[in-house]
């Protein structure tokens, strides 16, 4: 019976999955996902699309905050830059969609480098405040550069075409989003099996000590910002195509806090955690909406209370996880899993 992880060869040590069961599970999951658009209605497809986008964004934020320990409240600004850059490249420059998203992501990582420069001097709290300021400055730029972004009036994004097919429905954009979620997850998984990933973790645990041991803080802190904002750029680009109209209001400080909450609730420094967190935070308002719909019979005012209920539940969830389960849903999942692996001799 398997009662622990034994690595007796280098190949075994390098493996991502210890057993074949998770691989089978993932393949089944992917096949199911491939058929989802045939069955799911527009509402659930829309929710799934938002989950996919949130997964990419949360993975990026987790690389920066969870793995490298650089606190950033500027993630919404990165998403905004990615979204607007994609939209502008397509609508004003005429770049095709499959080039616009990578180009926008590269541009966003350029901004990520600029955001990251304060991290060389500042740490923890001060860095958080610096990214907060960067968020406001970016939002100001987007609202007031009206000739490019259309300001508060909103920017309409044309439907993308891929292989002569217009990506104008939720079902079609669904495939694009999940075709990007898979490599994004794999890349993150592999990143932390390399020297770069280990350097990130060393910086998180104690950056001065990591510096003394020969990890170039300059290089790796900026690299973390670069990779993280690249993810955010991709997520932003997908957002532009998913919602098809961009408003500066979609990228407020609350969005940045939502993303931070995703990685806290899901689990900091955990890939599975980013996914769980993205699912949780996207489903939370939807579940409340469903609850309100069924409660309108008893209490006709229920719908008006969704926004405030969401705020309260969100706040309480964040407080609860920080106090009782700081490693998040990923940790709960691990506990359930290990219980069943060792069953019936678990204790």
């Amino acid at each position: 019976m398997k009662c622990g992880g034994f690595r007796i060869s280098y190949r075994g040590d390098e493996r991502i999955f210890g057993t074949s069961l998770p691989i089978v599970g993932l393949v089944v999951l992917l096949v199911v996902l491939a058929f989802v658009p045939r069955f799911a209605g527009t509402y659930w497809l829309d929710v799934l699309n938002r989950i996919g986008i949130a997964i990419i964004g949360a993975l990026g934020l987790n690389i920066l905050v969870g793995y490298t320990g650089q606190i950033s409240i500027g993630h919404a600004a990165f998403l905004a830059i990615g979204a607007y850059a994609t939209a502008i490249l397509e609508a004003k420059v005429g770049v095709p969609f499959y080039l616009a998203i990578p180009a926008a992501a590269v541009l966003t990582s350029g901004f990520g480098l600029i955001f990251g420069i304060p991290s060389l001097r500042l740490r923890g709290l001060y860095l958080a405040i610096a990214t907060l300021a960067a968020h406001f400055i970016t939002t100001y730029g987007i609202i007031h550069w009206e000739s490019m972004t259309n300001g508060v009036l909103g920017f309409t994004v044309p439907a993308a075409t891929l292989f002569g097919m217009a990506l104008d429905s939720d079902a079609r954009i669904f495939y694009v989003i999940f075709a990007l979620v898979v490599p994004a997850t794999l890349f993150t998984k592999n990143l932390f099996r390399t020297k770069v990933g280990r350097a990130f973790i060393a910086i998180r645990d104690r950056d001065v000590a990591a510096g003394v041991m020969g990890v170039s803080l300059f290089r790796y802190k900026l690299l973390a910002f670069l990779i993280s904002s690249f993810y955010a750029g991709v997520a932003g680009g997908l957002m532009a195509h998913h919602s098809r109209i961009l408003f500066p209001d979609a990228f407020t400080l609350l969005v940045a806090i939502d993303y931070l909450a995703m990685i806290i609730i899901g689990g900091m420094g955990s890939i599975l955690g980013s996914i769980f967190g993205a699912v949780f935070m996207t489903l939370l308002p939807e579940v409340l909406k469903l609850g309100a719909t069924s409660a309108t019979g008893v209490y006709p005012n229920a719908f008006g209370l969704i926004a405030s209920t969401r705020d309260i539940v969100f706040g309480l969830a964040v407080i609860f996880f920080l106090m009782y389960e700081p490693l998040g849903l990923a940790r709960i999942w691990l506990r359930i899993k290990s219980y069943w692996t060792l069953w019936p001799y678990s204790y």
Partner: protein
Amino acid sequence: MNEHVVFMLQLVINGIAVGGVYSLMALGFVLIFKASSVVNFGPGELVLFGAYVAWATILNMTLPIPIALVLTLVIAIVLGLVIERGVLRPLIGEPIISVIMVTFGVASVIRGFLNMTWGSDTRPFPVLFSQQPIHFGPVPVSPVHLWSFVVVMALLAGFSVFFRFSTTGMAMRATADNQQVALSLGVSVKWIFALSWCIATVVSALAGIILGSVRGGVDFSLADLGLKVFPVVILGGLDSIPGAIIGGVLIGVLENLAGGYLDPILGGGVKEVAPFVALVIILMLRPHGFFGKREIERV
């Protein structure tokens, strides 16, 4: 007098008046940080809470104004105790990201609670001061601004005396300076943490009441003003009370001057962003502000 000078004086005076309120909010923030190294990322919600409770007690429950104000401050004290006891004490010693996020969580709960109880419509705020402008030479000043400035300065003077001469104030300073030494000298550090949160919520509630009467109404945009605390405390230094006071006034003047002179050129909104531009510049040049304590890092 030249009309340019009058325009500038007007901006500066408005800036000082608004800056006084920023000083108050920053004072609450600095007190919490000094005592317990907790950064409160929801200062705006505390201000909002004070303003809404004051509105509810004065206009909704139609209590006489002095009683209503006292009641508001008592409720603010209870809020401070609940936050400190319920949420932040269990998190002592946790990583900074946890503390930052938990204050976001608390802010979110407060916002949701206010929204659920009183809705998100703009509420007219009771007129506490007369509307007739007072003229200082050619510069008109509204009494609300003048009074808010007087109240702020009186409060700040009161706090200075409190920290300088009272035993509790000295215990708070001692805790801020060195917790272990303070503990060994018989200061109850837990009580100091709770007290600093109470003072912070009370001060924020006062800021809310003043802001409400300056604007003549309360709505959720008041909470956004709370974020102006960050430029103020970075300018003054996160752990400096004089820094918070001077920083508040400076940021208030800066945003008004920037708004007055740059808005016509850049097309609006400069007032909102100028403090944050200043914040970035200060962080790059002098991360610990003008009065803050410089940290030395050892492995």
